[in-house]
């Protein structure tokens, strides 16, 4: 699969993200898959993101495969116990999914089914170990599998967590548990990210920087105040403000493209993960401005 090979050979990768629909109408998702498939190396399919119930990630991955796109299956531990997770992983493999991103998952209290019982039978570090075990032909309980998986497994990390050290310790545990690549929480301060990379480079893993497109100064402030682990520096907020209402989005696209260009040209990390959140249509334009298309 191209994503793994490209990443392992040291080439700069680009991934994007698509959220499956709330409902059975997959037209928009298909539109986004078709739009992105030749422009990015892989597409993440989110798993009931923010604990909001939607179509599952696996269906999105399968549809992507049918259309010639390479999917990354996001898997959270919120909704399935160890039996459900392993069973879905085997199913995903049989359907052709090769990349999996292991996450803990937002708590149900963030979503639209607040009365749900959160599962968390295992968590991200343990899920990585499970994937490693399935790759080695055994289930979590040590039973032999008839046919092993060969997943390329990744995890997430928040380079701007505060306090940072416990997050880094968890990162190290994820590496030890078998994570091969990381997609980070959104970053905006490249200089600070370089410091994180100096640390992360000590580990044999690939780091893909998360980028969220800023639509306005208001959005940037919202991220600063309400989204854990995201810090938008004041200069960027000023830049968006100066652009005025009409040109704010355009400036946001520019900022994103500029960051991609810098991350690639200075070889700061191994790729970028663009979380467009409702602006998937703009991803090709960002990549064009970044000189990647």
């Amino acid at each position, binding site marked *: 699969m191209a994503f793994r090979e490209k990443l392992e050979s040291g080439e700069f990768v680009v991934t994007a993200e698509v959220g499956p629909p709330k409902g059975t109408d997959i037209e928009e998702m298909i539109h986004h898959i078709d739009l992105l498939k030749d422009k990015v190396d892989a597409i993440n399919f989110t798993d009931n993101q923010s604990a909001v119930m939607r179509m599952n990630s696996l269906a999105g991955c399968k549809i992507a495969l049918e259309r010639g796109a390479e999917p990354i299956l996001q898997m959270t531990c919120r909704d399935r116990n160890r039996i459900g997770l392993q069973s879905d992983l085997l199913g995903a493999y049989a359907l052709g999914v090769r990349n999996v991103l292991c996450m*803990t998952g937002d708590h149900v209290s963030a979503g639209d089914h607040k009365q749900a019982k959160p599962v968390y039978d295992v968590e991200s570090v343990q899920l990585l170990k499970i994937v490693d075990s399935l790759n080695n032909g055994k289930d979590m309980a040590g039973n032999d599998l008839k046919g092993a998986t060969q997943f390329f497994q990744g995890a997430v990390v928040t380079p701007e967590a505060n306090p940072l050290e416990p997050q880094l310790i968890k990162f190290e545990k994820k590496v030890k548990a078998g994570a091969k690549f990381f997609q980070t929480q959104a970053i905006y301060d490249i200089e600070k990210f370089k410091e994180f990379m100096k640390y992360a480079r000590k580990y044999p893993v690939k780091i893909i920087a998360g980028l969220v497109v800023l639509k306005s100064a208001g959005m940037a402030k919202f991220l600063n105040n309400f989204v854990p682990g995201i810090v938008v520096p004041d200069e960027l907020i000023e830049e968006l403000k100066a652009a005025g209402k009409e040109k704010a989005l355009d400036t946001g696209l520019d900022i994103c493209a500029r960051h991609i260009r810098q991350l690639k040209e200075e070889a700061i990390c191994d790729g970028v993960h663009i979380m467009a959140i409702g602006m998937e249509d703009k991803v090709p334009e960002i990549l064009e401005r970044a000189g990647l298309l």
Partner: protein
Amino acid sequence: MIITKKKDFKDLMENLKNYQKFFLIGCSECASLCGTGNEEAIKELTEALTAEGKEVTGGFVPKTGCQVLGTKKELKAFKEQLAETDCILVMSCGAGTQTAVELFPDKPVYPTNDSLFLGNMTRFQMFDERCSLCGECILDKTGGICPVTTCPKGLLNGPCGGMQEGHCEVSPDIPCAWVRIYERMKKLDKLEEFRVTIVEAKDWSQGQKPRTLYAREKKKKEE
């Protein structure tokens, strides 16, 4: 101790609408500390029931409501009052209520409280939950602070991405369990231990309900 809270009086009256005569059983342990099963609570409930036109034939605070044999012995003195009632109200936890259910097979037994959690009392009648009786204690691996209980996700290997300035993603009022564990382990110079140990997924079979234990049997076997 077991933390209990009085049921809403209106709801309680709705449950009791088919009964007229009550006997009230409290508990001198947890429910007394919670103010839900002490003499005062019995007095209050007696007054409230009387005001609703009900009769209370008597009330008693046994030493330990979840101790079946002891409670049985103590209640012998109230044989007559108990015989007169058509419903027994238990003002302790769900365990105490089920002691009465066992002792009075022919009488309806109703709880007046909701049983909430195993709690620590931090100030007078102020409680928080620190242990959820998971059956396999891992405090030895987590600096003595329980993430199974105090992290809403029960994570075992460090904070999730939702942690913000030391607070939990679920609520700014909850300190992140994993930041607390990290800080304590750092203070105790045990960060290396935290760093290198991957805590395995919990063995939930140890918490399989209903649980029983006969401590003396174990002692005999060991001898």
